[in-house]
């Protein structure tokens, strides 16, 4: 049985926890860095990436998050979470956690009035998936080992780089839990490997 955490500094934490529970795994909100030791995988939720970054710095979370990644544990970033995971950010010199080999541009679809819903085909997950984009970022460039999972109008909106999964949209805002289930499988596989 795996246990998955949701970084709970700010944002859509409850929805991710409900989605994980719907996938049949134990889910907990992570408010303190020590709690990272209890979990097998971590979701970085949607919210405001600047706010989350302030709070990550304030509570000295950054080293623990980097260690979590270095330990090979899976991480899944949705929207703001994708921004936190990316190695490069358009218009910024420094990344945040900087572990997923992608370049991400913030608010790249425009302001809130441009936010939208669209049906997406997600590789290995669904031929039609309801995706909610809110002031969403997108992946401008992906490293050679990154598997592109979904595109919308030519832009990369979901990708996997080994243990890291990221998407521009909010799978937690719908009742469709297939993408969350895909991450749960990643976590189970990673845990299996460490046990062997």
């Amino acid at each position, binding site marked *: 049985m795996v246990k998955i955490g949701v970084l*709970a*500094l*700010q*944002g*859509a*934490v*409850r*929805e991710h926890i409900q989605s994980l529970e719907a996938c049949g795994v134990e889910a907990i909100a992570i*408010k303190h860095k020590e709690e990272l030791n209890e979990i097998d995988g971590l979701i970085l939720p*949607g*919210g*405001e990436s*600047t*706010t989350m970054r*302030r*709070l990550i710095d*304030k509570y000295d979370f950054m080293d623990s998050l980097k260690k979590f990644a270095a330990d090979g544990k899976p991480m899944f970033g949705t*929207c*703001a979470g994708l921004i936190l995971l990316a190695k490069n950010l358009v218009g910024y010199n420094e990344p945040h956690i900087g572990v997923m080999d992608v370049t991400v541009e*913030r*608010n790249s679809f*425009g*302001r*809130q*009035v*441009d*936010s*939208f*819903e*669209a049906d997406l085909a997600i590789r290995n997950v669904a031929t039609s998936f309801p995706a*909610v*984009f*809110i*002031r969403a970022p997108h992946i401008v460039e992906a490293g050679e080992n990154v598997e592109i999972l979904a595109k919308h109008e030519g832009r990369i909106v979901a990708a996997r780089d080994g243990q890291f999964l990221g998407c521009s949209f*909010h799978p937690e*805002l*719908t009742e469709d839990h297939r993408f969350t289930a895909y991450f749960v499988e990643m976590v189970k596989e990673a845990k299996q490997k460490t046990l062997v």
Partner: protein
Amino acid sequence: MLTGTDRVKRGMAEMQKGGVIMDVVNAEQAKIAEEAGAVAVMALERVPSDIRAAGGVARMADPRIVEEVMNAVSIPVMAKARIGHIVEARVLEAMGVDYIDESEVLTPADEEFHLNKKEYTVPFVCGCRDLGEAARRIGEGASMLRTKGEPGTGNIVEAVRHIRKVNAQVRKVVSMSEDELMTEAKNLGAPYEILLEIKRLGRLPVVNFAAGGVATPADAALMMQLGADGVFVGSGIFKSENPALFAKAIVEATTHYQDYKLIAELSKNLGTPMKGIEISSLAPAERMQDRGW
């Protein structure tokens, strides 16, 4: 591809949860707010306590100020339109603000009808004092709620009254039998379908923030503890002695609202908070919460 759907509009507010939205009147204040970790800013011509002091008719801010704030920060920018003022709302939407507050802080343009917010692509936040008011606003298409409190007073008592009332009434609806709901809808003056949705979900279908009187980190934490999803701070930051310190401390207290040792630490040496107003000293005409219905 669909824009302006309920999911997109309500979802935007979901992303703000656990955060603090701060009133700002210029680019400099907006940057202080962003730097402190605000999840959004509300661009205004005057903060509520100054609106109170100035008297007269309070209207939508000068679009130049809204634009200045939008250009200054990458976090979402909200702005206020008068209750029922269709054109102010459309102007703010056309400018691309991320959320409109149909707000009792401004002088109402319509004393009978609120905006039909379903017709807009931009999402709206509205104030409420009880579940009837909350459900009516959701029925009109509000994608986010906030308590009204009593704006510009730095006195938390009204916001506490409102959040307790709304949440107590939500609990009641959730525990009621479905055959009792139509009568409850009649008694509350609430749309029946919204009460059904609340019963089904076990909570309000939209995010509900606290607003109207938050002046200290402890006030913000109190509202979170009473079940608010996040906090609006109007005059409380830029009318305090050290806005940057207050802003940061309020953000942290909102995140860790049950960590009392931390709240004690971050409440130290903040300087003087905004000067408050005793609610009973307000004349009935000065009470902003009684605007709208």
